[in-house]
């Protein structure tokens, strides 16, 4: 049977085809303006493949979970876990390696790499738990504090925070039976984090006091440079982590000033990783999902972002946890564990309720890592490594159509997860010998790139690409 179209029919079909090709990226990227999600949950623009849920994809036993002492992690107790002798040996090895590599001009550890790493850590604002005392408050202006609904407040804060440098923003309401347990019992400096029925926050030599009326946690991400992360585990890669922390110290101070200017308190991290458990709060705020890394993977930047938080008494509409198929994908993928030089990450197919050591808090079903192996490798290479972040298939720049296709498929069904992992091996094969600490990309090539975006970050990632 011949299928001869009339000119009118053909032009009509042709128009549809042209329109289809023209509009295809919009359909796949599926960005929404605001996802109010039936419960007045204000969200920043999130990709269409991200759905919200009342519970996170990581199971939590709130009865078993207790407030955690931050200094029990390997950040604070590494010598106790590995013994003083090994700790001393690793410190000596780190010094010797860094000294030798800078003299050998080892790519990623050369003088210029070390100089940039050092420079990126400078120039940050003061970091404090307590709000600034010199802010121009409504009292000083002779006006009442800002008033509005929790939804209005959440929207206002999100807009302000995006402009000051946050990637994504979410909010968690504290509940003494559940989410309040994500605020540390003790900070990294071993000061007790006490939640008391008082009007104002305070701090002395032994404790920091959070007023009971401060019931909301603002959680945000600051993305890192994906291209720079490709040079992990070198000093050059470590620079982008340092830059993010430096950026956040200034960011936190600005946010505290903003809240004080509105007439509310902003209680910040007194030091890096203080105040509360970042990945857990990020999960509850819907900024991402927990993963095989035992860290947060975001829909927008994969794991290539840092998570920060602040407690406030400004009532905020909480954002909901998300399900984008990330945790499910992690069960199949295991690429991060394969590329971990110290084999610290779990190879189990299912997450577990049992931590692998006293450095992790129980009460959640996770892919717990052997944190001492990870931390020992950091000492060997003299950086914070980052190879697992770099290996993650979600840590992509998301300009190619394939990423949107993969994300949509991952979110819809786990059936194709192993096939998608196989494709990722073709497009992001990684070094032949990751156990030797070889980076995904040559750090010397990084120095020839003058076309990276500002801060190495595509700040429009996760937003409309049309």
């Amino acid at each position, binding site marked *: 049977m011949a299928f001869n179209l009339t000119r009118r029919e053909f*032009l009509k079909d042709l*128009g549809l085809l042209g329109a289809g090709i023209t509009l295809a990226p919009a359909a796949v990227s599926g960005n929404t303006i605001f996802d109010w999600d039936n419960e007045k949950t204000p969200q920043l623009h999130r990709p269409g493949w991200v759905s919200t849920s009342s519970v996170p994809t990581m199971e939590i036993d709130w009865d078993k979970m207790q407030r955690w002492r931050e200094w029990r992690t390997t950040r604070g107790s590494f010598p106790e876990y590995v013994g003083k002798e090994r700790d001393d040996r690793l410190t000596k090895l780190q010094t010797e390696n860094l000294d030798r590599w800078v003299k050998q001009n080892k790519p990623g550890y050369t003088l210029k790499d070390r100089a940039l790493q050092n420079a990126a850590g400078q120039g940050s604002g003061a970091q404090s738990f307590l709000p600034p005392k010199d802010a121009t408050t409504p009292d000083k202006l002779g006006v009442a504090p800002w008033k509005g609904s929790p939804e209005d407040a959440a929207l206002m804060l999100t807009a302000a925070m995006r402009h000051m440098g946050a990637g994504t923003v979410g909010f968690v309401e504290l509940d003494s039976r559940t989410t309040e347990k994500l605020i540390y019992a003790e900070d990294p400096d071993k000061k007790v984090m006490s939640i008391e029925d008082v009007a104002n926050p305070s701090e002395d030599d032994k404790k920091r006091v959070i007023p009971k009326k401060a019931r909301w946690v603002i959680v945000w991400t600051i993305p890192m440079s994906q291209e720079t992360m490709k040079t992990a585990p070198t000093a050059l890669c470590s620079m982008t982590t340092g830059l993010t922390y430096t950026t956040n110290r200034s960011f936190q101070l600005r946010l505290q000033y903003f809240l004080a200017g509105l007439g509310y308190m902003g209680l910040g991290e007194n030091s890096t990783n203080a105040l509360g458990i970042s990945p857990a709060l990020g999960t509850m705020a819907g900024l991402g999902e927990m993963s095989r890394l035992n860290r947060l993977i975001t829909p927008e930047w994969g794991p290539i972002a840092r998570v920060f938080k602040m407690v406030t008494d400004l009532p905020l509409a909480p954002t909901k946890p998300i399900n984008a198929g990330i945790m499910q994908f992690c069960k199949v993928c295991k690429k991060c564990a394969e590329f971990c030089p110290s084999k610290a990450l779990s190879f189990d197919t299912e997450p577990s309720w049992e931590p692998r050591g006293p450095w992790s808090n129980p009460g959640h079903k996770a892919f717990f890592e052997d944190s001492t192996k990870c931390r020992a490798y950091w000492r060997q290479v003299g950086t914070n490594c980052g190879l697992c972040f770099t290996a993650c298939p979600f840590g992509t720049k998301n*300009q*190619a159509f394939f990423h949107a296709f993969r994300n949509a498929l991952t979110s819809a069904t786990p059936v194709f997860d192993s096939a998608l992992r196989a*494709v990722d091996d073709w*497009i*992001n094969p990684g070094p032949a010998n990751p156990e030797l600490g070889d980076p995904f990309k040559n750090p010397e090539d990084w120095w020839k790139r003058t076309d990276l975006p500002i801060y190495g970050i595509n700040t429009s990632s996760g937003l409309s690409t049309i």
Partner: protein
Amino acid sequence: MWWLVLGIVIGALGFWLVSWAKAHKVAVQWYEWLLGVIAIGLGALALQNYYAFLREMEPQAAMVMLALLGIPALALAIIAVGLAWWQNTKKVAGAPKKS
């Protein structure tokens, strides 16, 4: 913008192709049109992924995607054109000779 330009180019080429086929009385079966449309779709995806991965500074990924999508696109296009050509040639060859 890139997609708009590509849509206009594909539309113009398609219009020319149909006009040419009608002018030369070339009959094209429905499945040949279908194969052609799929080939164009895959080809457009191959180009998008190729250039986007280059922008992402991932040349290997760009080549993989060009091969994964571009080769099937090319194969389908060849099959569609080949089928149409073969059937029309057969018809001409089998036509009764003028006395």
